[in-house]
């Protein structure tokens, strides 16, 4: 409650007409950002904790035969606020041979299929595995053509999250092949931009 109250209060504050429209001095505008950022940071931390537990199977009948010998873990997830600037430490820090768990939550009251883009700093062979469908997922690794800040990732991994259930999640394992197995995976090499010649 405390975290959500803080966030509600911060959003309430920035509903002030000067905050919404920017009709304030620069330092006041910066202060609005600071208050909102503080509240969002604690809300993101809360979601990361709560979300992990919600991912574990609830209905113990069907899922038991899969999970009886799998240790139940307090999984903590993180969010990337500058995701729209292609900045995400969780995926950019992945090294060859490492795997990240990427979960996507669908807040709509209907199932949806949508592409997911992950910022990566390395263009090693990447494979995406859908835990729900127990199958590899087709993915593209592109040179990022919109690096708006120094921290923006040079590469974008794009894959499609199929049929993510309403108010539910889909979980993917994103694995960077290590040097030894790089040649074996069918994962795509990075797709580079081709300059379009000036019309003759």
């Amino acid at each position, binding site marked *: 409650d405390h975290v959500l109250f803080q966030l509600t209060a911060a959003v309430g504050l920035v509903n002030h007409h000067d905050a919404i429209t920017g009709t304030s001095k620069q330092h006041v505008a910066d202060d609005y950002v600071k208050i909102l950022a503080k509240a969002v940071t604690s809300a993101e931390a809360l979601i990361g904790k709560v979300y992990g537990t919600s991912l574990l199977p609830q209905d113990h009948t069907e899922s038991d035969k899969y999970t009886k*010998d799998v240790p139940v873990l307090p999984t903590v997830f993180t969010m990337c606020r500058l995701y729209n600037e292609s900045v995400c430490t969780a995926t950019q820090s992945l090294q060859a041979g490492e795997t990240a768990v990427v979960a996507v939550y669908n807040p709509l009251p209907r199932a949806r299929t*949508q592409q997911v883009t992950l910022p990566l700093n390395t263009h090693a062979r990447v494979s995406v595995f859908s835990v729900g469908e127990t199958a590899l997922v087709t993915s593209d690794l592109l040179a990022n*053509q919109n690096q708006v800040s120094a921290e923006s990732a040079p590469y974008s991994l794009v894959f499609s999250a199929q049929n993510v259930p309403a108010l539910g999640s889909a979980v993917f394992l994103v694995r960077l092949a290590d040097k030894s197995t790089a040649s074996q995976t069918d994962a795509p090499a990075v797709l580079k931009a081709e300059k379009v010649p000036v019309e003759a």
Partner: protein
Amino acid sequence: GPHLTVSSDQVSVTFNSATGLLESITRLDVTGAEGKPLTAQVSQDFAYYKSFGSPGIGNTATLKDTRDPHLKNIQPLRDADSVNNQPGGAYLMRSATPEEVPTRLAAEKKVDLSVVRGRGLSEVHQQFSDYASQVVRVRDGSPVVELEWTVGPVPINDGIGKEVISKFTSNLRTGEKGRSKCFTDSNGREFMERVFNYRPTWDLEVYEPIAGNYYPLTAAMYIQDTTHDQQLAVLTDRSQGGASLKSGEMELLIHRRLVVDDNRGVEEALNETTGGMSHYPDWIRSGDGITVTGKHYLLLSSVSDGLKEVRTLMDELYLPLVPLFSAEPSTVKHFEALATTAAAAAGSAENKVN
């Protein structure tokens, strides 16, 4: 060749190789008139309006009287001088002269193009100027043309404040008796009809033919050509100003960098950070200027399906999939074991997670 086309399974976009600009959009999953795929000629470009009262338009002597020297030789608008002197600023957008044609950011040069073609998406990178670029994306499974624009820092070394717009021009006929018509949302809910230089509830006297036709968007605006059963919508990722000044056109105000205060109380130009240009009084603050990036989503539809498609897309844009991450070894192991167990149970050995 003369054109460059990128397609997804639902939409294809053609660029003109000579100008580097968008040229047409085709819905591969919708049949238009004469049984052909729904197609519209659509171009997009970045430009800016000079902001009223910018000292750079004349010499800095005009600083004392922020009246725009342009207006000296134009019959003053029918207002008292006090309004004529109203500069553009944080509270209001006012272009330098009523008849102003916005200045292209690409000036006269060709917009450079580069293409990346993937299996599930393709994207075209456009470089308009050293402070404006855009990535145009088409993705499998979606009829939307995604325009990720990046603008800034906007140069003000000419002393001119700039109102930067993204302008869409199409062959849709969207007006009656020369008055263009568009629809803009109200807080993401009801779409209101907007007619150029017209208000439904009083006889409008036009003082600002540009700014007076801008309306606040929270989510989207669209134009309709009912004769040809076509609708073109632009969805935004934040609140912006939007207008349709001519038939078939839509323009959105995406970035502003002004150099004078608008005398409405902020006492600071809508500029970024502090600093100061040596020959300007200290109340003009120059800064590094900010770079802004955002997305516009272009959706070509038939009129009959138009609003349903816009609403569905609004849901997906404003309640996007939320990605959460964990690289903790214990978490990875947990989900790998889950997947392996499920794969074994499903008997599909080749799916084993290696």
